[in-house]
């Protein structure tokens, strides 16, 4: 229903633009009218064609049952790791279930890829897929080469640009909601969504990218490095005395902190520290009373958007240990908030800020 609605909107938009263009071109009223009628007929055929196309791609009936089984199965993660260990060459056709519970089949390694999130773009570049990437989101700025790729919109996607890029696959992340995924599928696009919840998921997802694009060797190099980073931090964290565990306060947007369920919280706990806002979930406004009582030893803040002075000068925060001892550290936002290949670097940065010199 929703997809159909969006499609109609698209067509309306198109009709609107074409309408104005043709009126400008045609001086006579009648001529304009005939042209408009012609366009209307054309659009009708086009929209019918689009309907037919969408049915063949996202055939509604059979997927329904498959979706249910997919939801019962734990996730895409389990079987993909097995596959990585088993073979380093992908056998097509390959069918995988994505985060929306939809089965997506790949007949060959995708030659044209659109990536709609910074984390995904980073993962794809890490696998050396520079040539295959034909579109990225407005927010993708790493690696440098991502900046010169065609832009497909930000939070509001530029649907026309995506369709025009004729991608074999569109990779989307958590920021693209399921309704948008459905409407993209309705346009005949092959969409695969990733939505990792943990560091482990991120690593498994990179293996999945490798499988889909037949870059399993490259993927293994990336995931091995990430696992090694993680292991290094875990070992160092395990050697820290229970009594020396630090409490950490995070501020990655002015006046907002990060609680359970976010990667930053997992980075803190993996580092063997305690998040001062661990009573909250996700992003929430700072509860000054709770933070002052938790008395964090270390404050980590966003390099991009937070001025540490505003934290230090905050009413009543002078008594917090981290402020008293001036233990406030800027963290590269992109390292700790993007579930991509650099997340393990973020983990090391976080660990080093909390426990300097503890890593060998």
């Amino acid at each position, binding site marked *: 229903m929703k997809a159909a609605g969006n499609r109609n909107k698209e067509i309306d938009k198109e009709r609107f633009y074409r309408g104005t263009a043709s009126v400008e071109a045609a001086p006579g009223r009648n001529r304009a009218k005939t042209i408009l009628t012609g366009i209307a007929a054309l659009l009708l055929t086009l929209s019918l064609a689009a309907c037919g196309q969408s049915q063949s791609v996202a055939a509604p009936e059979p997927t329904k049952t498959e979706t249910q089984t997919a939801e019962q199965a734990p996730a895409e993660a389990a079987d993909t790791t097995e596959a990585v260990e088993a073979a380093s060459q992908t056998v097509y056709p390959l069918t995988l279930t994505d985060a929306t519970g939809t089965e997506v089949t790949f007949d060959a390694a995708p030659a044209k890829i659109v990536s709609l999130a910074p984390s995904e773009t980073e993962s794809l570049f890490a696998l050396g897929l520079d040539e295959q990437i034909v579109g990225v989101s407005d927010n993708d700025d790493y690696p440098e080469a991502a900046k010169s790729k065609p832009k497909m919109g930000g939070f509001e996607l530029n649907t026309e640009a995506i369709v025009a890029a004729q991608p074999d696959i569109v990779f989307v992340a958590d920021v693209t909601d399921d309704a948008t995924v459905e409407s993209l599928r309705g346009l005949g696009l092959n969409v695969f969504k990733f939505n990792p919840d943990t560091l482990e998921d991120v690593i498994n997802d990179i293996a999945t990218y490798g499988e889909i694009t037949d870059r399993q060797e490259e993927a293994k190099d990336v995931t091995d490095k990430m696992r090694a980073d993680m292991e290094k931090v875990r070992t160092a964290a395990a050697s820290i005395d229970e009594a020396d565990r630090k409490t950490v306060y995070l501020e990655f947007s002015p006046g907002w902190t990060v609680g359970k369920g976010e990667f930053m919280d997992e980075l803190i706990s993996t580092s063997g520290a305690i998040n001062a806002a661990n009573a909250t979930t996700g992003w929430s406004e700072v509860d000054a009373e*709770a933070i002052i009582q938790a008395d964090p030893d270390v404050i980590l803040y966003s390099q991009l958007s937070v001025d540490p002075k505003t934290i230090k000068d905050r009413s009543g925060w002078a008594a917090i240990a981290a402020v008293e001892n001036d233990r406030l550290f800027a963290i590269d936002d992109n390292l700790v908030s993007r579930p991509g290949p650099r997340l393990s670097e973020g983990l090391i940065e976080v660990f080093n800020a909390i426990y300097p010199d503890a890593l060998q």
Partner: protein
Amino acid sequence: MIRRLGGYGGAGVLLLLLSLIFTLRIGSVELPAGRIFSILMHELPGIGKWFPQIWDAGEAQIVLKVRLPRIVLAALVGAALAVAGAAFQGVLRNPLADPFTLGVSSGSSLGAALIIFFGLRTALLGQWTLPLTAFVTGALTLTIVLALARDRGKLPIYGLLLAGVVMQSFLGAIVTFLSAMSDRPVNEILFWTMGSLNLRGWSYSLVLLPYVLIGGLFLWANAGAMNLFALGERRAGQLGLNTEGTKMTVLLVATLVTAAAVSVSGVIGFVGLIVPHMIRLIAGPDYRLLIPLSALGGALFLMWADTLARSLLGGAEIPLGVITAFAGAPFFALLLQRSKRGKGGSGSWIG
């Protein structure tokens, strides 16, 4: 008059103190009443030494630098908005006038949003940059709304409301556009459209205090004139009042008071609407009573609204503007219904 003011005012002040004691106890960190009392007493010169410090430093910070300043700021913002609302209603003779419905709040928030968006928070005039910009845009908005609503020298209720709504949605769209353009995970600008008193220390109260004190006293001094306005502008003129001059200065001062409040708290709607009407129901239509009592009532109202905002969901904040809108919008509907039947809150409103 003075005796009634003393009676109502005394009751109001008493309620305010009681509320202060109650709201100080409410917060995400549990603190026993006795300890809060000791912490407060410890600060007083002279008797402080009778209350030795048995609490840890964090607890004292929570009471003295987080809770107390926030409660005081809520009282000041509430007083500012309520007084401004009463004054708008007085000189415009319109029961539904209030800084929010007239678009002044939205205008001020646009100014604030521009300042935030371009990162100019402390440019040029230091901490006064934001309030003054908010004032200018608020005053401009009011001018436009009044110009749009004016119909043959009169300001009809519906015209004024429509003009206010139009300006609100237009300015709201600009603010939304600005917040869409900023690419941070949490939107600072959005805060202006919802109102909040979180993380405000004493410095915010200090900024607001002079506006509320001086502005409030000025408006109170004009209460007699507002009583004359209630008779109709022509009668008021015949009785020797410089109607245009008074109207303009009162509107200007009320806008300034509103803008100062908005600049520290963001947009908090309906306070200036509900409170003066409540006071009218209790103490009658005399503006000499209405203005000071609205200040007290507004302070009380927002103190409690903010306490709900910070405590209803445990540690998570509910935007303050949401709380006041829940209370205010139904009330607004009721007033609109009554004014339709031709019996406004009090006195003779021009419809």
